[in-house]
């Protein structure tokens, strides 16, 4: 495990993702996987048949090596979200508590570019940074037993999308038809740590149309290359 200062900081993320890339590229003797969170890299192996101390020394040297590794290009994903009251169970509540209109709330939520720090908790659950401070609201006192797949919520300083139906305590403001995890695809989750996402408001009809397209596997999610 390799740790950086305990902070949520895009610069730390860039630094550790670069290190992660170097570890993945330089490890050829055995299979490794490298998990990152906000400030940590965890390197795990599918074997214990190696010299642990030597491997630690090797990992240390990897970071100072000048390698032909470029920080990977990041994508900006445009995620359609329907903020209709049909999905946005807590939209009105949030607007009332914050003393703002629901249209302002949607405007602020869709204006921000969110950084994907890592994927964790559930398969395809993105940990996003960059929520507008005016939208921060504590989790609900009692979690809901069933939150729909694709639900978009705010919990504390975090915003995110439930990749599958699950119990949850976040305030739900909308729903995205996009599938964030599909175990049958070769790449089960399109996003990777370091990417950015932006929410694009859609209406109920569009939500239904996109869902149908996804089911027929002829929907292409909009994205562009971005520099962070």
């Amino acid at each position, binding site marked *: *495990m390799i740790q950086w200062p305990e902070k949520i900081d895009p610069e730390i993320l860039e630094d550790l993702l670069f290190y992660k890339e170097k570890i993945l590229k330089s490890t050829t003797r055995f299979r490794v996987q*490298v*998990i*990152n*969170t906000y400030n940590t890299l965890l390197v795990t192996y599918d074997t214990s048949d190696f010299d642990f101390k030597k491997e630690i020394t090797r990992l240390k040297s990897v970071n100072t090596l000048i390698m032909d590794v470029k920080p990977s290009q990041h994508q900006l994903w445009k995620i359609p979200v329907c903020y209709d009251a049909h999905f946005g169970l807590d939209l009105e509540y949030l607007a009332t508590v914050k003393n703002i209109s629901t249209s302002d709330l949607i405007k602020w939520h869709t204006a921000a570019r969110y950084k994907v720090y890592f994927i*964790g908790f559930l*398969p395809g659950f993105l940990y996003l940074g960059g929520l507008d401070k005016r939208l921060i609201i504590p989790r609900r006192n009692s979690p809901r037993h069933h939150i729909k797949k694709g639900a978009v919520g705010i919990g504390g300083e975090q915003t995110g999308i439930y990749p599958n139906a699950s119990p949850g305590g976040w305030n739900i403001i909308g729903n995205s038809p996009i599938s964030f995890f599909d*175990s049958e695809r070769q790449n089960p989750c399109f996003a990777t740590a370091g990417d950015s996402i932006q929410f694009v408001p859609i209406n109920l009809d569009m939500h239904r149309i996109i869902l149908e397209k996804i089911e027929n596997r002829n929907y292409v999610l909009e994205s562009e290359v971005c520099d962070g």
Partner: protein
Amino acid sequence: MVEVLKTGLYDSIQDLGRFGFQHLGVPTSGAMDQYAFTLANSILGNQDNAAALEFTLLGPTLKFHIGTAICITGMQSNAQLNGQSIETNSVINIKPHDVLSFGQRILGCRGYIAVLGGFQSENLMGSRSMYQHITYEHRIKKHDQLKILEQSLPYICSNAHVKTPISHFETDILNVFKGVEFGRLSKNQQEALFQQEFTVSKDSNRMAYPLDGILNNSLDAIITGPVLPGTVQLTPSGQLIVLMRDCQTTGGYPRIIQLTEMAINQLSQKAPSEKFTLKIAH
């Protein structure tokens, strides 16, 4: 094909789990007691990773529609073939129409039924281990028809029989390493951690074993970081939660200790209300 006449308390297909997808939030999964699982495959001469059926506290009743060979390991509970007691930890030859059943639990908590060649359930992301939202089914149901992979090697009947040391089930000391946040505990908390007795709670499952027994806690939450099977988290209320094979990939509670691989296997054989203490591994 193997027909499920009756399920146990919780039956699923498991192998050694998924490797290489944790960065997408995918749990490792796999057999809870990998020692017992691996033993069953070794005795049969299967590949290490051949999928087996894992049962919990109560075994299922299975009807075989083909001839094959099986090996039962882990939890002990008077395994029977057509009503006659059979040996565990050894090769049992099976004829079509044979019925395998289990009696009451005697020792342990999780049992394994390995078949020659392994079960052929859905293989997703490099593993047949069942897990919700990854595999279509996350547990075995009554009337399921389980397929078996064809065995490519000719089967040679050996009379291998291996005894599992009773301590594997009955040990009341689990070996651990210091966790990432261990150093944040006070001297008193550290001492209490290794003196106190902990009890397996009834809410234990493949994801986590919450322990009964409170450790005084003054630690703040951490910013979400990686966790692994065997990671022990300390919650704000002072409860310890041991993460098991189906655990999430990240968590926000302090990670005070990490169970050794063998200790994870041993804990997975402990039923609710069993007690143990923790000891630093050397």
